């Protein structure tokens, strides 16, 4: 995975029972804030929403810090929280967008570059939010199927199948990378 690797520092729970888990979450967030901030910005177009999701991820991690001692891959645990927050937000946003369409209102224009807009459109048009999250985590954040299984509660084989289907959908929707517009 792509997060920077730096030292960890923790206090034994017996000596600092109330601070050890918090310190570990802080250390984890210090290391992962940037890549998770990028992941959330990749998953949702609205940067203000992505910032809210990053805050929510941190809040949730702090509230759930007792779980961390039993977690094998802390990075995957934190990414899993971020993924869940993003998927919840995307589901809410989809309902909201549906309401806007029904009311005949337009969404604000996308300020990103044309290439970025095109790939986001392709991902949203082709994949469910859950599959989109898997593709982004696999190919942009280098998590393998075992780590993705830990994040999602699926089996590694289930992850591989969903990734395979998502890849096929993407490539079918964009059959030629040379010259064809997305």
């Amino acid at each position: 995975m792509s997060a920077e690797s730096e030292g960890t520092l923790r206090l034994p729970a017996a000596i600092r029972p109330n601070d050890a888990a918090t310190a570990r979450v802080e250390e984890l967030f210090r290391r992962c804030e940037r890549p998770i901030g990028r992941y959330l910005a990749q998953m949702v177009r609205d940067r203000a929403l992505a910032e809210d999701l990053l805050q929510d991820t941190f809040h949730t991690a702090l509230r759930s810090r007792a779980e961390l001692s039993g977690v094998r891959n802390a990075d995957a645990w934190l990414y899993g929280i971020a993924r869940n927050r993003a998927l919840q937000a995307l589901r809410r946003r989809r309902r909201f967008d549906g309401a806007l369409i029904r009311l005949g209102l337009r969404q604000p224009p996308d300020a990103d570059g044309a290439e970025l807009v095109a790939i986001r459109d392709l991902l949203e048009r082709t994949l469910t939010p859950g599959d989109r999250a898997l593709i982004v985590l696999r190919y942009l954040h280098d998590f393998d199927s075992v780590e993705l299984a830990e994040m999602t509660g699926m089996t590694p084989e289930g992850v591989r199948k969903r990734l395979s289907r998502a890849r096929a959908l993407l490539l079918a929707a964009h059959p030629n990378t040379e010259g064809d517009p997305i």
Partner: protein
Amino acid sequence: MTAHEEIRIRELLAPLIDVEPVRLRPVKRKRPVIFAVAVLVVGLVGASIAIADGLDPLSGIEAANRPRTAQDVPSPTLARMVRLFDGSQAALAASTGRLAQRLLPATARMIRQLPDGRRVYVLSTTANGLCILATKAAFSCGPPLTQAEPTTVSELRYGPDTRLVAIGVARDGVRSVSFIAGGRTTTVPVVDNVWFYEGANNAVESVTVHYADGTTKTLAH
């Protein structure tokens, strides 16, 4: 999946690689609260000065009890720690209803440079917490050192395949610290209020401090 398909998927997603990450927002304080706190501070300043020595979390750490010098000026690493700590405390305060505490960078004192080059700083918080930072690693905070807990114990691992490093900051008068690591009792000296251990094992247990007067104190577990 073929390597060609793998390349195509990665090419397809390439525009997303450089998306600028979002960051945690800095904490915004409401002006009325600042004003109220300012009034309170002005009102209590006399009393605070009178009891400051008793509250200073760096008291009892002689290596930190000196005027600030250039080596104590927060490095970029320390500045990042300060920002993260303040953000995390604000988040914690929001979720628990507790008052947020902030680090006080001006109190930072570099008290020892470890054999591997890392510097150990101590600094205090607005809630009189004691924080310890080893550069290029995360930091930890807790209550000030006391008779009952005369040393901190922090364990660092720089990578999955590296040996464990344990670091502690001890009160004045503590000459050495012993502990069980990997089934063996080890004793390390305290230099400038800091002790340091690097070993192949991943647990430091049964920590006992040894005072200069010959007495000992085993930390409660």
